């Protein structure tokens, strides 16, 4: 029985929750408690069972064993509706909003039938003002930034006056300023007695926000701690259950001739939800790691495709490698001249889910490593190369013949990054290199990038994880609405400065319009 700081009955208490999927035990006798008004962190590597656990609390899954106590009573939420009736709200990592509908329409969809729209709009405006979440109920969702969309999800939960709010990696889509604002909202909620279960792998955030942390590893609770007194490093080590390797940071060399030159790259938007690239220019020298920051959906995907060759560019001189124009070449031919890339989406883009790892090796490594000659596949070679990636990058897989879909996200990420790194490219463009990857794997990937740079490659890292960019890049620039900011020396850059460049047009001005909107609605 876990008790907290003299609180009476815990708001939520889990006792011996066990959930199995076939032979896999995702949660193994998990027990912990969350007091009223507590911000409780749930920490763990990928596949540690965090999502399974909260899905059980929110009624999306039914635990096989164990009890959920809600204010001291045993409950079995059979579906999210029942969980919401109890007072449990959840904000998912991926939003479920209809782009073509307005905020109030989206929220009304999740309500009981016959809700009065006008009254609802009023309540939305009221709640969003009270919690510092500026939102115009009558704007259509496609016109909202990602941060604003998250507000819609949070407001949707708050309208139910929840007593427990579950947040799954909420800051992965926010600028630092937006994240700070979210923390204020969460603290205010906690002061009012709402408990918050906060899932994240960003340890700095957890230190700043949470008063208690439960750490999961391999489906079991391996410990709990007070994040304020722990260091990020000590928590990471509890999470992975091993010493964290320190990165052998290489010395930044003075830049020689640029190896990769992007010179006034323009690319029209691909479809109504695409972003056009406008006059993007930067240079990356040998041995340099160049970072591109920005909130998702500001043209990073388009830039990755333009650099990697998935979208060709005429005239080709907008993309040059060692002075040679390559913009007009497709992905295969760019690899032959030394440019490899890792796209952001693993499944279906960087890898074919239903194919084996050996077959996936052929996808991008067939020419540079001789896995195919004269149009004939050399199966042994492909198998061997896949085995090598698995070995050198510590990929947990049944072997080279395992289907890509059978790997966890983090392991597949190690595989697709390793597949490019082992081709020893001259230029590597990598998007979200450690997205959804645990601390140990992230260190492996970063070390591989360092080693590659050490050997004279030019590396472009496109990431939404600012901490990552600050840790590994030499210079960085920020993407906003298809434009790239000037490049900053990473050592001189401050989070505030980068955050302002990220916020760009959807920072302060949006807020004023939102507030005007809400005033109109109240009137």
């Amino acid at each position, binding site marked *: 029985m876990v008790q907290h700081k003299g609180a009476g009955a815990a708001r939520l208490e889990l006792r011996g929750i066990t959930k199995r999927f*076939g032979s896999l035990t995702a949660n193994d006798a998990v027990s912990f408690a969350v007091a009223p008004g507590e911000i409780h962190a749930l920490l763990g590597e990928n596949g540690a069972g965090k999502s399974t656990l909260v899905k059980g609390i929110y009624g999306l899954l*039914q635990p096989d064993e164990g009890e959920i106590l809600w204010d001291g009573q045993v409950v*079995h939420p*059979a*579906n999210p509706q029942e969980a919401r009736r109890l007072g449990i709200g959840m904000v998912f990592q991926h939003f479920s909003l209809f782009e073509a509908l307005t905020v109030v329409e989206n929220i009304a969809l999740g309500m009981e039938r016959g809700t009065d729209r006008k009254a609802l709009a009023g309540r939305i405006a009221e709640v969003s003002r009270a919690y510092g979440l500026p939102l115009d109920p009558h704007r259509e969702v496609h016109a909202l930034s990602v941060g604003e969309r998250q507000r819609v999800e949070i407001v949707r939960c708050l309208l139910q006056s929840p007593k427990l709010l579950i947040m799954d990696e909420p800051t992965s889509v926010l600028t630092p300023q937006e994240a700070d604002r979210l923390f204020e909202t969460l603290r205010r909620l906690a002061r009012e007695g709402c408990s918050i279960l906060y899932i994240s792998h960003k340890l700095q955030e957890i230190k700043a926000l949470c008063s208690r942390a439960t750490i999961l590893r391999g489906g079991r609770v391996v410990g709990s701690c007070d994040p304020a007194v722990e260091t990020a490093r000590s928590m990471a080590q509890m999470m992975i259950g091993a010493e964290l390797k320190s990165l052998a940071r290489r010395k930044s060399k003075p830049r020689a001739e640029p190896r990769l030159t992007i010179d006034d790259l323009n690319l029209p938007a691909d479809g109504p939800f695409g972003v056009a690239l406008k006059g993007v220019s930067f240079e990356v020298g040998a041995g340099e790691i160049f970072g591109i920051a920005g909130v998702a959906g500001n043209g990073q995907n388009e830039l990755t*495709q333009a650099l*990697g*060759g*998935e979208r060709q560019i005429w005239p080709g001189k907008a993309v040059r490698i060692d002075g040679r124009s390559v913009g007009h070449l*497709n*992905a*295969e*031919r*760019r*690899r032959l001249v030394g440019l490899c*890339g890792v*796209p952001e*989406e693993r499944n*279906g*883009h*960087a*890898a*074919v*889910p*239903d*194919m084996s790892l050996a*077959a996936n090796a*052929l*996808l*991008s490594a*067939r020419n540079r490593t001789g896995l*195919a000659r004269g*149009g*004939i*596949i050399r*199966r042994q070679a492909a198998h061997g190369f896949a085995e090598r990636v698995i070995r050198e990058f510590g990929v947990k897989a049944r072997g080279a013949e395992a289907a890509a879909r059978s790997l966890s996200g983090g392991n597949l990420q190690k595989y697709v990054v390793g597949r490019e790194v082992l081709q020893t490219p001259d230029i590597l463009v990598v998007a979200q290199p450690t997205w959804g990857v645990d601390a140990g794997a992230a260190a492996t990937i970063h070390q591989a990038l360092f080693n590659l740079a050490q050997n004279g490659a030019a590396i472009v890292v496109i990431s939404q994880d600012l901490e990552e960019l600050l840790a590994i890049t030499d210079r960085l620039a920020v993407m906003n609405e298809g434009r790239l900011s000037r490049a900053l020396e990473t050592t001189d850059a401050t989070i505030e400065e980068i955050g302002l460049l990220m916020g760009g047009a959807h920072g302060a001005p949006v807020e004023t319009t939102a507030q005007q909107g809400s005033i109109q609605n109240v009137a």
Partner: protein
Amino acid sequence: MLLRIEPRPEVSRPFTCATPAIAMLLTVASGWLLFLALGLAPGETLYQFLVSPLLTLNGLAELGVKAAPLVLIGVGLAIGFRANVWNIGAEGQLTIGAIAAGWVALAFWGQEGLWILPAMCVAGMLGGLAYAAIPAFLKTRFDVNEILTSLMLTYVANLVLSVLVFGPWKDPDGFNFPQTKLFSESAILPILVEGTRLHLGALVALGVAVAAWLLLSRTVVGFQIEVVGQAPAAARFAGFSGKRTVWLTMLLGGALAGLAGTFEAAGPIGQLIPKLTPGYGFTAIIVAFLGRLHPLGIVVAALVMALSYIGGENAQVTASLPQAATGVFQGMLLFYLLASDFLVRYRVRLLAAERKLVTAS
């Protein structure tokens, strides 16, 4: 009470492999009931339908004669289907191929030479290829759905054939029948087994199936086809062009259908007539799926389908069944195959039943 269809969490592999066999068993069982309802002796009729063709040399040879075009077309279509290219107009490509081959045969009518047959094959393949190029162009240039265009072009091809055999190419000594002159000896495929109709085309079809199997499993082009079909974004990442793959698979499927048409005209028929096939171009779609889109599976599936054609003819004679019985059998087979494929991957649940379950837990 509502039905809900949801994906199964785990797909059983043995079941996935067994669905063609399950579908065939269900087809036979339904045939049994059907014959019973028609007042026929079901056992005897099924025997005539499915077993007796296998008991004579001629029956076996006919199996090869009918399976050969199905293999050729089915393999070509399957390659396209794997790349998510849905050419269902093979019947039209077959017809244009036969016309092109027939044109060569008629142009050199009465002449002798070993080159005539190869020339007909090349012409037939080019004809089918050119006809498949139309939907390929529309698809890659204007994003027009190839299912519609290829299907509609089939009827155009049949009309072109009719115009020719009713008009300029009609045999002047043919008592006004809508057909061309019988091809001369050099334009007829050699027979493999004396006294039967089994021709060289059957061997070629087998060779094509083996070649296609090697193409798909051992070459970068085959890999490209798979990747484009399964994950178009990954294909772009790999540097494979989706459009080029559409062209490649459409033209290949068209050429093989054209070759099948050539073999029909230069084999069992020996001339051009208004109705060249009993719908091989469409049956081959069933064959492709029954064979799991695998070239060697397609050979087996084509033999099963060929049996249904011959059995249907047999049963017409012995049990005076209508010719439609063949179509019914083939339709049932495809229906059961698609249904069991679907049910292996999805399950149907009654929502009312589910509620009860929830309250019980």
